[in-house]
């Protein structure tokens, strides 16, 4: 075996160099680079791989299998119905409504939480008194379990509750709404609560990105005569773009799967006005014990996320990973 066969074996150039330097194959097995490499890889990757296969990959396959059956969850799978669960899902107005709501939340998260997170992160990146405290405060809601957030906000938002009283105290009584009962508003109520919960995460992520931008670049631009706005627009934001793209990815996947806060706040109601794909799935699967159908919904949701992830990877993230992950680094 020579360098090129080592490369052919997928071991990467470094391994090939090791191999070439190792000389004749007489060393004990633990000294043999190829075996050592494999052992290392096995030991380091196996735990993660086993978890991934056992708790992600196989369940997806099993769910896909279940989705072809009419199955209540009790007893054996003995009523195969082909693609009927899928065709019924797309004929059910409640499911279409849930998809619309999910997409609305996703777009709103990108369009509203995005600029908000960037703005706050930029502010919090400046030096001022109480900055650490403010950073903590902003991040605090993210630390709360979503169920706690749901219960807390359902109390705050109940008719004549804290929110209404605060609005009235500020002379804004006219803005009082049935936050959780008005079918035209309830989806946006959920969006606000979701924003409250998750915006801290986006801000912290972007702050980390901002820390990585060398000050020298900003200083150089300033010396060249750029004002603060110019520096932000031409230096900071472009350099922050990889972080923003990652944030966008996490936000979209999170929004597509949103369940817990919505479930505790409204259970997707009233009359499905705040349903999401995940709450619809729970209602049909767990509450109505129609697990075959719910498995089909799960597969559809997975397909949404997977297709999005592939496209995003191909068209948005690739430019960030090119040169890092696409070049052999072994």
């Amino acid at each position, binding site marked *: 075996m020579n360098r090129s066969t080592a490369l052919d074996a997928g071991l990467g150039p470094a391994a090939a160099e090791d191999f070439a330097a190792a000389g004749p194959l007489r060393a004990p097995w633990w000294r043999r680079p190829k075996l050592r490499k494999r052992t290392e890889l096995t030991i380091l990757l196996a735990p993660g791989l086993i978890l991934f296969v056992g708790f992600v990959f196989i369940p997806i396959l099993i769910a896909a299998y279940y989705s072809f059956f009419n199955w*209540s*969850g*009790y*007893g054996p799978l003995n009523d195969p119905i082909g693609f*009927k669960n899928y065709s*019924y899902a797309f004929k059910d107005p409640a499911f279409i409504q849930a998809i619309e709501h999910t997409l609305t939340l996703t777009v709103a998260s990108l369009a509203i939480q995005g600029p908000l997170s960037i703005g706050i992160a930029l502010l919090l990146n400046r030096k001022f008194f109480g900055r650490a405290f403010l950073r903590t405060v902003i991040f605090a809601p993210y630390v709360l379990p979503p169920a706690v957030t749901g219960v807390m906000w*359902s*109390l705050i938002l*109940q*008719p*004549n*509750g804290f929110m209404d009283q605060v609005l009235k105290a500020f002379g804004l009584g006219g803005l009082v709404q*049935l*936050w*959780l*009962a*008005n*079918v035209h508003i*309830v989806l946006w109520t959920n969006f606000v609560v979701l924003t409250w919960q998750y915006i801290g995460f986006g801000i912290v992520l972007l702050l980390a990105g901002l820390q990585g931008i060398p000050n020298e670049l900003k200083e150089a631009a300033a010396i060249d005569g750029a004002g603060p706005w110019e520096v932000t627009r031409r230096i900071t934001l472009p350099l922050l773009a990889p972080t923003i793209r990652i944030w966008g990815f996490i936000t979209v996947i999170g929004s597509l799967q949103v369940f817990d806060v919505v479930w505790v706040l*409204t*259970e997707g*109601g*009233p*009359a*499905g*006005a705040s349903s999401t794909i995940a709450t619809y799935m729970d*209602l049909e699967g*767990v*509450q*109505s*014990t*129609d*697990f075959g159908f719910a498995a089909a919904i799960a597969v559809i949701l997975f397909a949404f996320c997977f297709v999005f992830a592939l496209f995003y990877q191909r068209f948005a993230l690739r430019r960030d990973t090119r040169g890092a992950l696409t070049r052999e680094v072994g």
Partner: protein
Amino acid sequence: MRSSRALAAAALAVATATVAAACSSGGSSSTSTGGSSSSASSAANVTLTWWNNATNQPLLGVYTSAIKGFEASHPNIKITDVPIQNELLQDTKIPLALEGNNPPNIYQQWGGGVLGQQVTSGKVDNITSYVSSWIGNISGASGWQANGQQYGVPVDLHVVGFWYRKDIFAKVGITVPTTLAQLETDDTKLRAAGYAPIAVGSKDRWPDAFWWEYFALRDCPQATVTSAIKSENFSASCFATASTNMAAFLKTNPFQTGFLGTSSQQGAGSSAGMVASGKAAMELQGDWDPSVMEGVSTNKSLSSELGWFPFPQTPGSAGSQTAVLGGGDGFSCTGTQAQAQACAEFLQYLDSPSEQAQIVGPGASGEPVVTSEASAITLPATQTAAAYFKTAAYEELYFDTALPTKPGQNLDTAIANYFSNPNASTASAIANSPQTP
């Protein structure tokens, strides 16, 4: 507490069914746990986990002492009490546990079509042979049968009606309504006095279903209701009439502001909490409601302030004017033969007169399955309910429990949607809901 199967009828039917079951026991059941009904569990030590919804006092305490009493007389049996919040227990934990390999040995069970479906899991024990000697004395036990076999035993029965605040009624100067028209008049006066007339927990959907189902009982003859549930088809015209009548009632604005987002039993802001705190004057609920109110309120004089009246009559309509909606709480068994037998012995203990007196007396959990213990009910409002229960034309099991799970849930969802937006399309959705695939 919310529960299922109806049952008042039935000593004769139960006796017949029990004899039939006894004759055929060991036959077609999917889980065979046959064996003698003697005290076989005395042989080895048996540990049982018990899932129930008694998360609040006083029933929690009653169940705890029941365990102590039972363990004292059955030293080889240990029971672990696991109280779980009702909706979580009913909708999530039990179905998932029955799909898993380690379901609780004793779990709460509301009978009807849902029990029938659970039996198909093959994990619910057929306890016919263990209970045959005493089940004939238990009211409503036939509601916990599937395929003619006993797969569970009720420990109390429930009736749905109006729980109202006597003090508020007196303050506003209104009396208990006997017709729907009177109820609407009362509502108007209550609203004028600053109260939410009626609280309803629409977020949970099933409280909405109680309303529609009562309209259906008033507007449809019993035979129509029975056959609709059996055939899972609500397309008979009287159900459309019920929807129309309910929509007309909704138009009178009888419920609290924002009722579509209110839960029924959780916290002070729930419909039960609103009645307990005096923000609302009444609520259509099952007779577990007083104990729920006690759990979410600090009102110490609540028990004397609560009254009960049946769903009002709608003179001239085609259904029974005194039929009641209700069900009961029961328990089913899973596990080995020894565990099933120990479970059955525990259920027999819970259905003994002394424990029945505890459950409906201090426990305030509805009506007893041993009719002689009705006198043990302490809450005056529940006494009224129990007295009316005996005179009712018939009791119909909550529709969502009488139906198998999916049609039942579809019906609840369709009714809740109708509550939110009553129109021709949502009304026809109710009629078609059970058949929705």
